[in-house]
């Protein structure tokens, strides 16, 4: 596998392989010195056009634990010369000798575009509202770990929130359906994409109606800008109908788990403190982030033949 850009590109085999590798990486992370020399001599460059300290650090830690060299370019859009194309940026950096780029950009498709201009492996850390494959891998791993099983057939996953603008949702829908889960999307109609009859999901506008049958409740963040854009009449109406509060937590089965990709918008989609949610996997999602990213980097950079 040359790149990790989307779950659909990764496929079922790739998904299984990475999740299995993550187990090895998770074991390494329990050691007193969680470091192996596997990617010694390789260079991993973080190219974050969109700010995200948490994800970027997670990747950097992963690279360092595999003994790779890391370089970090935080390119905020205002500082990038308007005339400088993606190509210029990539070609400049590639000249320094890069084995993998970890890229986050607000524009969809950037990981595919830049593949034309470099031989390095590309890891998509989020491209617009399109894909965030490592988040989905983290989420799949976390669910299997929590439930103690690999086969997720028949598992009822409910994803709640701004599906329309969510790369986490798109990646998770692909990943969890490859693992056999039943997926329900819950959102107001304005936050659901159009033309999704071909998606392997059920759709509902009523959160309370699906809670009792939900095994995994996945809450998405709602950005406050959505109200300014007129997509929801008010944040209050949104939280009342789609927010996770104590009442809704109680309505869940006792075996159900709750997840959120972070960061949380308290008072909007989260109306209860996560530490007050029994069966919250939010903390495990964060912890597993490094192991998953180690697995991804190892898989990409160990599979290569020297050119």
């Amino acid at each position, binding site marked *: 596998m040359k790149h990790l850009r989307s779950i659909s590109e990764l496929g079922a085999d790739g998904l299984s392989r990475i999740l*299995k*590798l993550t*187990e*090895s990486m*998770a*074991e*390494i992370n329990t*050691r007193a*010195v969680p*470091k*192996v*020399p*596997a*990617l010694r*001599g*390789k260079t991993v460059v973080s190219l974050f056009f969109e700010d995200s300290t948490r994800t970027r650090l997670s990747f950097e830690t992963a690279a360092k634990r*595999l003994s790779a060299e890391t370089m970090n370019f935080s390119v905020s859009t205002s500082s990038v010369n308007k005339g400088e194309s993606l190509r210029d940026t990539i070609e400049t950096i590639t000249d320094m000798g890069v084995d993998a780029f970890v890229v986050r950009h607000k524009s969809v498709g950037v990981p595919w575009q830049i593949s034309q201009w470099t031989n390095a492996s590309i890891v998509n850390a989020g491209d617009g509202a399109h894909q965030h494959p490592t988040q989905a891998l983290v989420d799949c791993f976390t669910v299997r770990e929590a439930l103690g099983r690999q086969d997720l057939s028949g598992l009822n996953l409910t994803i709640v929130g701004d599906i329309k603008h969510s790369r986490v949702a798109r990646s998770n829908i692909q990943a969890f359906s490859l693992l056999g889960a039943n997926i329900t999307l819950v959102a107001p109609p304005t936050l659901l994409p159009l033309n999704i009859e071909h998606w392997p999901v059920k759709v509902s506008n009523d959160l309370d109606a699906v809670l009792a049958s939900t095994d995994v409740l996945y809450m998405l963040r709602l950005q406050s800008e959505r109200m300014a854009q007129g997509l929801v009449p008010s944040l209050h109406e949104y939280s009342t109908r789609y927010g996770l509060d104590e009442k809704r937590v109680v309505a869940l089965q006792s075996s159900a788990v709750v997840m959120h990709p972070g960061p949380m918008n308290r008072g909007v989609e989260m109306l209860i403190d996560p530490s007050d949610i029994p069966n919250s996997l939010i903390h495990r999602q964060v912890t597993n982030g490094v192991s998953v990213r180690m697995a991804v980097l*190892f898989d990409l*950079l*160990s*599979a*290569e*033949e*020297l050119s």
Partner: protein
Amino acid sequence: MSSAPQSAVAVMSGPDVTRAISRIAHEIVERNHGVENVVLVGLQRGGTWIADALGERISSIEPNFAVPVGSLDPTMYRDDIGLRPVVAGSASHIPCDITGATVVLIDDVLYTGRTVRAALEGLNNFGRPRAVQLAVLVDRGHRELPIRPDYVGKNMPTQTTDEVDVSAEGVVVTSVAGASS
């Protein structure tokens, strides 16, 4: 698989393998004057079943001590990552502290010695053993590093083009006809 004609020879039968494991088990006990401070670590993936078999055999020889058996994936320590596609095994599992213990690394085939070197480096991450010994079912020669086994099931000179298959059912060497070493 090469397209040249091949011949497969069974150099050890299933019973041969069982006897070899039994002998190695006795040698381990004898050499270490008992198994009080011994930990068996099978190398993934070929050595783990042998480590399990050795553990069982040893516990029938020394019923008072349950020898800990772990497994180690040396993939992360290999020196050829990036030179060729590398497939990782499962998560390593060392069930106890190995500092001060005698670790017996166990693998099915000893060849260039590079896997064992990687395993030695990996072991370091888990602690500082008092000593490390090496048990292999088959030594096929062609060492590239100064590694030598302490316990050997069978010495078997091979060509570099040969393939050696080891299982509880026996050991089969497949040669490519007309190849020279």
